């Protein structure tokens, strides 16, 4: 993946989150027009975003991708950087899914702002996207771990703590981390 393309993808992602600098909007929009650099990514991000938001569409995603593509080709590009609804993982997640689909794994992590910093925080989604290490594809032999994010001063806790916690969390967190919980427990049991 070329450097230019990866920075273009990053810009596209920021654009869709409403976080891009006004000066860069034109550049991104041009690249998203038919035959532009980011055309495919634009389509893919929207397709993935729609799939994420509507379970109904999951069954028809391949046909949808074509339909979305055709529709986007016909529409004029959005010139104002519109703020998307506050759905923290929408495009970041879409970015990682798109990358996985494209055969390249790039994982972006979102950190909550430090607490005690409410006034100083930027007024957008109030999250600072932090790009962590490039991880391997989801179906590698180890389960995909949530890479910890911390400031320079405070290192992250070991993932085993999170796993141990989520074993008893119940609800969303427990179900979600079940795979990792079991894998780590099984490793430890060896």
């Amino acid at each position, binding site marked *: 993946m070329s450097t230019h393309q990866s920075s273009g993808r990053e810009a596209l992602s920021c654009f869709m989150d409403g976080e891009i600098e006004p000066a860069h909007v034109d550049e991104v929009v041009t690249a998203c027009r038919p035959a532009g650099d980011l055309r495919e990514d634009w389509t893919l991000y929207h397709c993935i975003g729609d799939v*994420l938001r509507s*379970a*109904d569409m*999951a*069954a028809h995603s391949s046909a949808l991708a074509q339909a979305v593509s055709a529709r986007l080709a016909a529409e004029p590009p959005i010139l104002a950087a519109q703020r998307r609804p*506050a*759905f*923290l*993982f929408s495009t970041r*997640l879409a970015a990682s899914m798109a990358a996985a689909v494209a055969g390249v794994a790039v*994982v972006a*992590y*979102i*950190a*909550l702002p*430090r*607490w005690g910093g409410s006034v100083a925080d930027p007024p957008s*989604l*109030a999250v600072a996207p932090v790009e962590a290490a490039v991880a391997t594809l*989801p*179906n590698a*032999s*180890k*389960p*995909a771990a*949530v*890479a*910890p*994010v*911390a*400031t320079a001063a*405070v290192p*992250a*806790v*070991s993932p*085993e*703590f*999170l796993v*141990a*916690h989520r074993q*008893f*969390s*119940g*609800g*969303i*967190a*427990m*179900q*979600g*981390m*079940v*795979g990792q919980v*079991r*894998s780590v*427990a*099984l*490793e*430890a*049991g*060896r």
Partner: protein
Amino acid sequence: MLAASSAAHAGPAAGTSAISWLQRAQHAAQRLNYSGTVVYMPMGGQPQTSRITHVFENGNERERLEILDGAPLVILRSNEEVKSYSPETKTVMVERRAGRGGFPALLTDPGAAIEEQYEVRKGDLARVAGMDCQVLVLESRDRMRYGHRLCIEAQSGLLLKAQMINERGEVIEQIAFSQVEIGGSTERYASRLARPKSGKEWRMSTPGVTPVRFADIGWLIENPLPGFRKVLELKRGIGASEVGQIVFSDGLASVSVFIEPIRGATFSEGVSSQGAVNVIRRRVGDHLVTVLGEAPPACISRFAQAIDFKPVVRQ
């Protein structure tokens, strides 16, 4: 799609209170037959897909959960006995778990008086996995816990989607059925509950945890917030240490307190966050205490301040 199941609740009543929808959802998760595909979206991480099948017959629950992303894993549950099969490591972990917890059963502590800590109100109707759902919104009264937005299938009462909402009203985590069948006879689901193939070369293991009473050895944790109660305390091996873990829950939110001896000169104190989890570490005596949970920073902070250690002198 929804066959008449003997275990299913009657259809929804228009005037049914919000809290009764919540109770109904908890009941449905344990008492209905259902099977579907679940997608979990953690904050800042990869989505994880799993397939779940659950049946209730003759007073017994059986369930099979298969993780479809990452390392393959199949978890079979029969009431409280849980067996986790890992084809990659050829290991079966056997343990007893009181109560299941986990989507679509949301509440960790069904006895908890949820309404004391959360305002529970009905929202609009929503459509999830092609089905009409009643939306329930749970908002923390003291702003010390994250809120939830739930989509509960209108006919059966089964929870189809749950979102965790932070202090700013943003969705930070989500888990939902992307496809589900609800109701029908147990026979219909029998083939989906199959035990994975395992062989003689497979190993059986048990989780390396030991129950402990931390108060007996001098650890005092005053319950800092209403509604939270201690649900578990044990010791487990993490890395090279033996680490104590005490879990508090208010029925929906959970906080874990980890206690480990400080090894050598290096340890980290301070505040951090990982995904939806907020973390505080502080030194208490010769120990490093780590408090973490899916809860606002202020909540984690209260717990961290509520911990004290007075070594018990053995006679």
